[in-house]
Structure formats: C-alpha cells, structure tokens
C-alpha cells in the first residue's frame, strides 16, 4: 500500500534520514520506534509531503507521491495525526472535525463521518460546542484522531499519540487505534510507548540516527534484548 524506497531527507544541510526503505501492506499496523531525534517525526512528515526527500521514492497505492503537495496527499487518503495534536484551539470541537473533511468524497460525507467519530469517542459528542483548547489532553487527542478520520484515510499515521497522557487514557487511545484498524484503515504508528505500540502491531522497525537498525515482526522486537534494554528499560 505504501512503499518507501531509499529516501534521504535533509533539514537544510543536516541529514536527518538516510537510505530509509519501508513497506506497509493493506490493513497492517506498523510501528516505528526510536529515541528522540532518531528521525521518526521527520519520516512521517516526509511521507505526508511536508518535507521533500532529496533522494528516493515514495509510492502510495501504486502511484508515485514523492514531491507531491501535502494537501494532495491528504486528498489521496494518506493522513497524519501530528505530534502534540496541533488542534485549532480557538475553534469548537465540531469545527475542528469539519476541517478534517474539506475536499471531495470526505466533504460530501462530512455529516456521516462526524457521527462515526462520535460513535468512536462518545465523550466528544457532549463537548462538540466547546473550544478545543479547553479540553483535557486525552479529549484533545481524541479530537485530533477524529479530525484525521474525517478525511476518510486509507492510511492513517500517528505521531506519538500517547505523549503526555495519563496511563488510563493511553489505553483508551490505543484501543481506539485498534478499532480504527479493524474497520479497514491501515496504520503507521510512531511511538515512545514501545510496549503498547508493539503489542497492537503486526510489524515494527527501529530507527537510530536516521537509519533503520532493526526490523521484524512485533513479537520478535518485543523479545529482542536490544529493544528491551534501550526502549523498555528492562
């Protein structure tokens, strides 16, 4: 579904990613783990078209999207839920969700999609008229996920969805991600919360200083001594 071939990504002069290749198949959950500044967010931003790779190729559903604009990529159904949620804080929950569905089919199905999001996160229904900035962290993450779903994504990318959330809320967020996957959406997850993320994934890869150092099934990574030591503190 998504095929990344040997991309190099730079911020100015500094190389962030080197020679990254990755394939994601339909309906999979794939997790990317790695320390801070390993290049995880940059990887997602490159896929989303916010940063253009200097070298390599990104293909989505058989079409080359390397160098495409970010809004075109969203329209194709490749959507990112950014780190730190990045909600429109002075706008209502409902408006935030509406902005997730601006074009084409997603725009036409906006009303139904809102109902679908409220079904997934019933809490948001009571808060729909509230300003997004006044919500709790967990609720904000729900709005961010809901906003991503409003674009009717085929592949949804999450950048640190559990960041700054209470353990109970983290569980809720991962359950939502699993349900989204079960309803047919492919998922690419970037997480510090390695245990949770790998438990619900099929496969994973480890990024270190912009390079893939380890790749395998989720179970094999959970059993890997290096992963356990470096990312799970065991």
């Amino acid at each position, binding site marked *: 579904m998504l095929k990344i071939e040997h991309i190099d990504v730079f911020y100015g002069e500094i190389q962030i990613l080197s020679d990254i290749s990755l394939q994601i198949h339909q309906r999979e959950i794939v997790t990317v783990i790695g320390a801070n500044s390993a290049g995880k967010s940059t990887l997602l931003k490159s896929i989303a078209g916010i940063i253009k790779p200097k070298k390599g190729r990104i293909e989505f559903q058989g079409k080359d999207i390397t160098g495409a604009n970010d809004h075109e990529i*969203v329209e194709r159904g490749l959507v990112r839920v950014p780190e730190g949620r990045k909600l429109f804080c002075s706008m209502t929950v409902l408006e935030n969700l509406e902005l997730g569905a601006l074009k084409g089919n997603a725009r036409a199905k906006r009303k139904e999609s809102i109902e679908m999001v409220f079904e997934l996160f019933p809490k948001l229904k009571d808060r729909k008229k509230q300003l997004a900035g006044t919500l709790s962290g967990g609720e904000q993450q729900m709005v961010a996920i809901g906003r991503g779903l409003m674009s009717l994504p085929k592949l949804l990318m999450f950048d640190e969805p559990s960041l700054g959330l209470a353990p109970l809320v983290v569980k809720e967020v991962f359950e939502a991600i699993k349900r989204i996957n079960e309803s047919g959406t492919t998922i690419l997850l970037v997480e510090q919360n390695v245990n949770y993320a790998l438990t619900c994934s099929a496969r994973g890869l480890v990024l270190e200083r912009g390079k893939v150092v380890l790749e395998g099934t989720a179970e094999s990574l959970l059993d890997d001594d290096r992963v356990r030591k470096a990312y799970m503190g065991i």
Partner: protein
Amino acid sequence: MSDFFIILIQAIVSGLLMGGIYALAAVGLTLIFGVMKIINFAHGSFMMLGMYTSYWLFVWFGLHPYYSLVISFIVLFILGGLIQRFLISRIEHTEAQNVLLLTLGLSLALDNLVAFLWTADYRTIKPTTFSGTAFIGEIMVSVPKLMAFVLSLLLTVGLYLFLKKTDTGKSIRAIADDIEGSHSVGINIRRISLICFGIGSGVIGVAGSMITPFFPVSPSVGSVFVMTAFIVVVLGGLGSFWGALLGGLVIGLAESIEATYHPGAMQQFVTYIIFILTLLFRPTGFFGGKSA
C-alpha cells in the same frame, strides 16, 4: 430641546458616523492583520487606490461609487492577491519586521506612483444621488456618511459569517490558529492565504469607494486612515470583527465629542489616550481572547 442637548446629540451622531467609517477602514485589516497576523502598512494605500478607482470611473463614465465599489473590490482583490503571492509569501516566515518594511515601502511606492500619474491635487466628485444632508429634527445627518456607516455594519456581519460558516473562512481561522494542524488536514495554505489577503484588500478598496462621495481623493489620503485602522483593530481585539466595529465607533465618538467641546487639534490626542489606556488595562482589546 436646549442647545446643550442638541449640540451633544449632534456630536454623538457625527461621531458614530465617522466611527462607522473608521470601522469600515478596519474590517479588511481585521482579516489581514487581526486574523492572519500580517502587518500590512500598505492598507491605507489600498484604500487610496479604491478611492481613485471610483473617482475615475465617476469622471469618465459617470458611474456612481456605490456601483463602482464592485470594481474596486475586484481590482484590489487581484492586486492584494498578487502582492501576497509574489512578495509577502516569500518573507512571511522570516521576522515580522520584514513584512512591515516591505509593506511600508510598497505604500510609499504606490502613493508616489499615483502622485506621478495623477498629480498630488485633491479631487472631489459630487454625485447627485445619495448626497446632501438629511435633518432629523434639528440633528444633521450626512447621507453618504450614513450609507458608509450602514455598509460597514453589513461588511462586519458579512465577514463574520464568512469566517464562521464557510469552509474557506474556517480554513483561514485554522491557518491563524495552528499552521501544522492546517498542513495535517490538507488545507491548501498558499491558496487560502492568497484568498484571505485578497478579500482583506478588496474590502478596503470598497471602503475607499464608499467614502469617495464626501472625502477628497489624493495620493496621501491613505495615511489619514492607516494608523487609525491599526488602532481600531488592536482596540477591538485582534481578529474580532465586532471588536473592530466597536473600536471604530469608540474612536469616532471620542474624537467628535472632543472636537465639539475643544475645537482644535486635540482629536488625535484623544485617540491615542484611549489606545494607551486600553493597552494598559485591557491589553487583549475589547473582544480579545474570543474567536472572530
């Protein structure tokens, strides 16, 4: 009615009408500066171009400014869009003073270009319809100023609804709120910024057309309004159309009452006193902290 009350009511009526004109000059800026945070010092020059558009269309074709304001809108929408696309968008993400210097330079260039083309003469037109003064009892009401006042109310309501209800309006607010969030939902940021700047510029062109029947046109006329427009936008609370309307009315009223009782050059003084006091005691403006 005693003279005292007649003079007071007259001062209030004139003040509100002038305030409506200040608000009119400020609504476009609310969109550009208040919402998008672009400091556009060429705002007054855009108003001047709107005035000249209506002036020449009246002189050449006898077209009333209330019709030619549509053309002013289109002309300034295109000009604003081009300036946003080819000049401002290049330096938008650098420090704020760059945009300020760019637009200040632009305003000097436009004012002088117009002075070169059409001389620095003050010009006036006298349309025969919607002109003159109406009397309500003993109170004088200038008809074209009343029209400008009504239009500023309509534009305020119109732009408020545009930002609140349309997808484009919501996208504009989204960009102002969180640029990365806007990327992630696939807002075409270039296109929306251009539309926003275009509409803001178009609206100030309309404001220029609206005041042409009673305000002399000259290349430097924009400088009369540009500072007041910025003050009104900040006074009302950045990004609030209702705030800008109220801010305009407050400044208009204060100036008019001051001018009635202390004839002389103290009007601007009152404006700045109000401005400074507001910044001291309510730095977010009348409607600050609330959206739109």
